[in-house]
């Protein structure tokens, strides 16, 4: 059974030539149209014609230079954004850890923020209450559990988000650069968790610049360049293709 089935998705962002945020801006803009100037924006295609399939238990690495569409693709899979064309089907439940962790409200404590994140990730409220202490401990934040979230460093916030996500029953994990922020000790703990997930046939989609990490955990990789799939297949080949491109400076990363 496919855990993710992405079919021919396209996504564009609007880049307005003049930024209009307020009602007044729009009125001014409408008036300038009357003067013959056009309301204009550029369509920037962040993703073009992306298709792939991932079977349950398989993991996928997404690689490519900055701005190639990796995070956008992950957000589409997480349903945070919608594609303009094409379809994405996912089976089962997902847990997402995007860049910069959680931080729902700086004024609430670490434990209170953890509760919000955990419940959104699909854990029951009663379960979260029971597990909060062990989650905070895994994140190495026991000392800070009653501190306000804003007093944590960004690395600590990602650690917290990560520690909650791995408590869920999700069969698909979407992880964006999250590991890069944690310290070496935490990374080791996470890698151990990943190994356990692989044994349990749970899938991981990883956006990363760490080729060894991708080769170690993902059977398949997708190499994105300027929003297009430049290569898809076995991680060994795809990562080599990327590194070759970088060396021959076809890609300036």
């Amino acid at each position, binding site marked *: 059974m496919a855990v993710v089935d992405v079919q021919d998705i396209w996504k564009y962002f*609007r880049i307005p030539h003049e930024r209009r*945020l307020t009602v007044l801006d*729009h009125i001014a803009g409408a008036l300038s149209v009357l003067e013959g100037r056009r309301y204009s924006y550029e369509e920037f295609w962040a993703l073009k014609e992306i298709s792939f399939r991932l079977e349950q238990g398989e993991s996928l690495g997404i690689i490519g230079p900055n701005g190639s569409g990796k995070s956008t693709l992950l957000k589409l899979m997480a349903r945070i954004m*919608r594609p303009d064309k094409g379809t994405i089907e996912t089976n089962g439940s997902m847990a997402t850890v995007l860049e*910069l962790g959680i931080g729902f409200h700086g004024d*609430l404590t670490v434990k209170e923020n953890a509760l919000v994140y955990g419940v959104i990730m699909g854990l029951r409220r009663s379960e979260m209450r029971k597990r909060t202490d062990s989650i905070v401990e895994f994140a190495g934040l026991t000392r800070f559990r009653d501190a306000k979230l804003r007093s944590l460093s960004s690395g600590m916030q990602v650690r917290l988000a990560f520690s909650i996500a791995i408590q869920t029953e999700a069969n698909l994990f979407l992880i964006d650069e999250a590991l890069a922020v944690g310290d070496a000790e935490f990374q080791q703990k996470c890698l151990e968790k990943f190994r356990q997930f692989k044994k349990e046939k749970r899938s991981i989609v990883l956006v990363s610049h760490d080729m060894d990490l991708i080769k170690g955990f993902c059977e398949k990789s997708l190499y994105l360049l300027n929003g297009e799939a430049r290569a898809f297949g076995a991680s060994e080949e795809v990562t080599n293709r990327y590194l070759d491109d970088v060396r021959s400076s076809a890609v300036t990363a």
Partner: protein
Amino acid sequence: MTSKANHYLDIVAVLAQKDFKVRYRNSVLGFVWSLLNPLASMVILTLVFSFLLRVDIPNFAAWVLLGLLIWRFFSVGTGQGMVSIVGNASLVTKVYLPRQLIVLSSNLANLLGSALEFVALLPLLAILGVNLTAYALYLPLVLLCEFLLIFGVSLTLSSLNMRYRDFNQVWDIVLQLGFFLTPIFYDGNLVPERYQSIYSLNPVTRLIESTRTIFLRNGLPSLYDDAVIVTSIMLLLLLGLLVFGRLERRFAEEI
């Protein structure tokens, strides 16, 4: 399907709880502020209209307080509901949940706050000579109706505010006007006959009239009140869900 419903209920519960906590944290008096605000307005309006202008409304203080509490729920509820999406960027950009739940949670926190205000001020109403009867038990129903009305309006406002960031300024002005177009401190019957048919269609007016009927006239809200309230809830909820559903698709990019 029930597990999905449970999941959504849990989300709404923790988000509403979060909103409620944030509102009263970092302030010395906390909940007391939300009592002092309508009380101060009541004292001022009573001094001006009852003592200086000698408006002839029996038990003016209690009468005006009921109007103020209902109005306050509407204005604060829609005001906070409107910024609930913009103010919760990480709930939009970092995780997925049906975003209507964010607005719903904000409104629920306000419903809870408003209900507590009423409960805390019931003794004052009694002191002011209001005869508290079993009709007061209809109050939860009135507040529930107002909550649904606020939810409908907040859905429209919050999605418009995502696209036009100064829309909250527009709404502030609408609310200022609304304060005078709603019979909070004057008798609605004073409005000239030919404007009455439009004037009386204001659902907040009907909610205020219903509340006054329950507490001051010890009776049931009129069928006209019920009809206007239920119809506006349905229309505004429908409009809100449509507008929100349409604009929600690009929230994560616009925030």
